[in-house]
């Protein structure tokens, strides 16, 4: 028996990468949401219930992912708690021994919902929180929900459910990080954040205006001792999207990753297994020769390349994303010139 968080995660990640096991699956159960977060990548016009996958279809999808060896299953949205079958789906996934994570805005988590989650055996709940009451409510476009979310986080912790707070840090809540970190610490839970904002799935890039400026990114990367983890060319350029990571949207479209809206197929038309086992995407995706710009780029070592950002920005998987390039350039400044 071995226990070593970092190295074992790497071992499992590498095995699943080589064997094309969908280790991490994210299912967007719905695009409907009771919030209107400023940075959200889901366009408002997508928020329709009519085409959503049925419970039966999702259960059959979970069975297929199980048969392919997947273990981490994330239920996301929209707001996944708006689906009436959410508990049934969690219960089914737990019956198949998945590690089930719920991404939620927390506003629908009352005592009864938390008790049901506990009974279903949920493994982790990740709650989006962007700052103190004033900032958060303004950012998500809804008043009167803040105290309820904080109470829910505390109750989840009290019920011994693994819970964390997560944020996207923008130029509007940059100074809220300390508050959020301190809040998480006082409750005794994890806090995590990201600062990369992607254009919406329909190409609308208006939310990019919320992204931190160069000085703020510099200060954040430096403060958090931003590590460059990957050192070989292949792993710098090619990520695991579609290799051991997969995402399915509420309408059944299968994508290599939730941030990469490159449609691989639809589970209403084909079995998930057939879509997953079709190698045509992977064969192109892993060919290093396709990444012409990266191969000659002097920022490559500092870059955490995201094909999703490249694809949404330029409609080209292999192109350079201005967002990742900007971050790479700042990382280089920190580690080379300071």
């Amino acid at each position, binding site marked *: *028996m071995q*226990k070593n968080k970092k190295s*074992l995660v790497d071992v499992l990640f590498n095995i699943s990468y080589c064997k094309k096991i969908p280790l991490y699956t994210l299912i967007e159960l719905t695009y409907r949401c009771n919030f209107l977060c400023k940075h959200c990548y889901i366009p408002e016009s997508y928020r329709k219930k009519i085409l959503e996958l049925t419970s039966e279809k999702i259960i059959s999808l979970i069975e297929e992912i199980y048969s392919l*060896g997947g273990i*981490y299953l994330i239920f996301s949205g929209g707001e996944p708690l708006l689906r009436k079958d959410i508990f049934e789906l969690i219960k089914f996934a737990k019956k198949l021994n998945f590690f089930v994570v719920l991404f939620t805005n927390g506003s629908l988590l009352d005592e009864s919902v938390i008790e049901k989650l506990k009974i279903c055996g949920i493994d982790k709940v990740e709650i989006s929180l962007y700052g103190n009451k004033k900032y958060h409510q303004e950012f998500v476009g809804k008043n009167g929900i803040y105290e309820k979310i904080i109470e829910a986080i505390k109750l989840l912790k009290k019920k011994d459910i693994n819970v964390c707070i997560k944020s996207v840090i923008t130029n509007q809540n940059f100074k809220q990080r300390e508050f959020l970190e301190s809040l998480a610490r006082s409750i005794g839970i994890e806090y995590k954040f990201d600062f990369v904002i992607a254009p919406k799935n329909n190409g609308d890039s208006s939310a990019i205006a919320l992204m931190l400026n160069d000085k703020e990114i510099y200060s954040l990367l430096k403060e958090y001792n931003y590590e460059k983890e990957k050192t070989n060319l292949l792993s710098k350029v090619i990520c695991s999207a579609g290799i051991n990571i997969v995402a399915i949207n509420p309408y059944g479209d299968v994508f290599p990753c939730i941030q990469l809206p490159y449609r691989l197929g639809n589970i209403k038309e084909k079995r998930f297994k057939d879509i997953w086992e079709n190698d045509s995407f992977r064969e192109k995706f892993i060919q290093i020769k396709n990444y012409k710009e990266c191969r000659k780029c002097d920022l490559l070592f500092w870059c955490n390349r995201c094909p999703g950002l490249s694809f949404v920005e330029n409609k080209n998987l292999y192109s350079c994303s201005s967002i990742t390039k900007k971050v790479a350039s700042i990382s280089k400044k920190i580690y080379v010139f300071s």
Partner: protein
Amino acid sequence: MKYRIKPNLAYRKIFDEIYIVDSKNSYLHKINEVGSFIFEKLKEGLNEDEIIDELVKTYDVEIEVAKSDYKNFIEEIFLKGLIEKDAKK
């Protein structure tokens, strides 16, 4: 004493080894081939004597070796909170 795998435990068998994710802290555990064999027998509801008997038959080892392997493995995963005592026996 009979043990059982904790309800709601997240795990998957990949190439003869079982990976378990601890829901309390998201830590990952890996069980080797023999451990995975015992783990699967626990899942089937077998008791100590039945599992030791299966170990002897499958791995062609002396009963004392099987007993020792069983005891060490059970102690380890019990301490890690991955199994619990089965009150039903």
